[in-house]
């Protein structure tokens, strides 16, 4: 039997509950980070398998959410590095080929292109910010110093705004 101490609440939790509670949000982050659903699903699956193995070997995870987000982002960084290494052509993400109007698809491609020009850590900050995470949570998950989050975020928002402008995307 596995045991876990959960910081905020002291409730009995099953692995299934934790999986159900966190899967969608982690998947959303991974999709935005790596650009396609298939890779994102693999990443989130690996994260949960990793957690399962960790717990089954008797280790304790004290800050479960931080662990999950950090592990997901680290795997996303690895995936981005692999993508950079092995792809020379600009691939239109599979996600943007899904059903929807042509305009909508084009819009997604433009946003992805702008996002892909940011550094992986900057991308992570922006994506977590868009998910309304606090600066503390962003700092814990990305490894950036808490005192630097505001500055880095402001700079990254500037960059993203400029990238979207250069792609002729109308933000306002």
């Amino acid at each position: 039997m596995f045991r876990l101490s959960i910081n905020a609440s002291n409730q009995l939790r099953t692995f299934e509950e934790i999986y159900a509670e966190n899967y969608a949000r982690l998947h959303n982050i991974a999709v935005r980070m790596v650009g396609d659903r298939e890779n994102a699903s693999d990443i989130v699956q690996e994260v949960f398998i990793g957690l399962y193995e960790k717990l089954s070997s008797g280790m304790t995870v004290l800050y479960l959410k931080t662990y999950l987000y950090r592990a997901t982002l680290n795997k996303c960084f690895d995936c981005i590095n692999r993508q950079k290494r092995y792809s020379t052509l600009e691939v239109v993400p599979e996600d943007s080929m899904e059903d929807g109007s042509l305009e909508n698809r084009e819009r997604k491609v433009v946003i992805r292109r702008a996002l892909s020009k940011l550094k992986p850590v900057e991308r992570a900050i922006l994506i977590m910010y868009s998910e309304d995470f606090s600066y503390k949570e962003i700092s814990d998950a990305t490894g950036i110093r808490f005192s630097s989050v505001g500055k880095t975020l402001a700079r990254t928002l500037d960059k993203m705004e400029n990238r979207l402008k250069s792609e002729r995307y109308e933000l306002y």
Partner: protein
Amino acid sequence: MNCIDKDILQRYLDGEMDSDQKVKVDKHLEECQLCRIQLELLQTRAVQIKKVLKSLSDKEAERPSLSSMIDGKLPVFESKELQYKNISGNGWKPVTRLSYGIAVACAIILLFLYTPWKTPGKSNDVVQMQAVIQEVDANRPYSEQETVITVINPDGKVTYMN
């Protein structure tokens, strides 16, 4: 007063500022129209960029079943009081572990103190000094060379001479 930096306004906007700093920024914003406009722009930008990023994954992710992912029995997490069992791996609480540790350390110290260490006694070894005097004459064959070996014991007596 100088205008406020963008990153400070960003923190103000996100509510990530301590109360003292917030009072200062509030006061400045009351006086400075430029910063008020800047804040408004930052707010609009933040809302728009959040919206843009959210639109990238607007579809609900299909969650694969856990059984297909992990075979075997699923774990159940128990409450906080049991966390020590996992950290130590042997089921002892830190206080118990500490007291056992101190007991073992004391036992080792006592064992060390009462061990009958072998004291260095008088040695029976005979110390002898020896000197080899060999005069080498390069013009004579080696078989005809003469070697004198003198061995002297600690009392200064010559015990062997050749």
